[in-house]
């Protein structure tokens, strides 16, 4: 039984990536924010992967989901900037959750992890957008260059509150899910990490 654990977790990661990809198709914008900022529930399977099989599994789910989405729907800029940003967002969100839950495996640990994950996602993505993703968009799409002031405004008024809100929505779902799946999650954890 123990022997095929590596293969088993690889397959479980693949399955969770497919779920994540399907969930990504049900994305929707949040009304006050610009349309390229979209919410979807695809981070949830990555969280499940991270807490049951470790952080690498979670990162792999994020990676595979984005590769799948790129294969299926392509990227408007040719260069998948949006997919890279989505990958970074996901990883920033799941790592703190794994880190806390790994040390405190109950509802309290999960809540703390999700709060930290939301903060790390919102702050991390604001920084990454400032130094990397928005400048990349400007470069590839030849938008007129945004001044430092405009970039700053966009991030403080758009990216930061958007990611906070997205984190809160995801946290609500994961906590609801956690309530009904806690025992099952612990069982999988014992199998894959134990």
């Amino acid at each position, binding site marked *: 039984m123990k022997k095929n654990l590596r293969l088993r977790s690889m397959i479980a990661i693949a399955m969770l990536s497919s*779920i994540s990809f399907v969930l990504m198709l049900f994305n929707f914008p949040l009304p006050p924010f610009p349309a390229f900022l979209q919410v979807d529930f695809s981070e949830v399977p990555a969280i499940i992967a991270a807490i049951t099989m470790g952080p690498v599994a979670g990162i792999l789910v994020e990676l595979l989901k984005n590769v799948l989405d790129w294969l299926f729907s392509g990227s408007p800029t*040719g260069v998948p900037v949006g997919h890279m940003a989505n990958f970074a967002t996901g990883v920033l969100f799941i790592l703190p959750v794994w880190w806390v839950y790994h040390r405190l495996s109950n509802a309290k640990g999960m809540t703390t992890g999700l709060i930290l994950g939301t903060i790390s996602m919102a702050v991390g993505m604001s920084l990454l957008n400032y130094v990397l993703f928005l400048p990349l968009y400007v470069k590839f799409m030849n938008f007129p260059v945004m001044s430092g002031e405009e970039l700053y405004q966009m991030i403080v008024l758009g990216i930061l509150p958007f990611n906070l809100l997205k984190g809160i929505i995801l946290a609500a779902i994961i906590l609801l899910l956690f309530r009904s799946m806690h025992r099952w999650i612990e069982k999988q954890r014992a199998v894959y990490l134990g």
Partner: protein
Amino acid sequence: MMEKMVFGRYIPGDSFVHRLDPRSKLIFVFIFIAAVFLANSTVSYALLLAFTLMSIFASKVRIGFLIGGLKPVMFLIAFTFLLHIFFTKEGDLLFELGFLKIYEEGLRQGIYISVRFLVLVLMTSLLTLTTSPISITDGLEVLLNPLKKVKFPVHELALMMSISLRFIPTLMDETDKILKAQLARGSDISSGTMKERIQAVVPLLVPLFVSAFKRAEDLAVAMEVRGYRGGEGRTRYRQLKWDWRDTTALLILLAVIVALWFLRG
């Protein structure tokens, strides 16, 4: 929506482009994306556009299909075009109407960027339209093989990709079934307030996760029973074959790049 997504965007066919090896198509598209940024004059952009149209012709993909896939991008293209028209104020004044002033440079930049966009989107769409996701995965695995030297798990990643791809249709069916079952109980995830949506998505996710882990167990046993031992010495059902077409396609691309280099302004 479910039915439409099952096979992705791949349209089976028997054209020159369809028959190319996925490896050469991937190399082609990656080099092409880089080459697009070489163009900076009217002639060079015209060449890019002509070359792209020629490739579409060679793939025998119906134009309607490509246009259909372009709809979401069209908005983006129109937006950047207008941005340039209104905000780039260089060169001669071409047109004036009240506060609206269109300059030569603005129009030029707007057209250049729209063409760049169009060409990038058309070429990457052509890759996914003429190559099935599974052959793209096969192609990527072989192309990334050199990374094995630095202990990068190329084979494992490719295996996970193939399994994911194989199970997307199954999962979509399953999602569809659960959605309908939930709909029959009066819960709907595609409408309602944020709170209702969140509450509706949980009963959808629980059975999906549980069955994913169950499947992983079964599939792992099934694979080991059939002698799966990882990537070392594995033989393949789908063989990749590089032939004259692939060499020709890459040579044509090389010629286009040389031409672009000389046509730069």
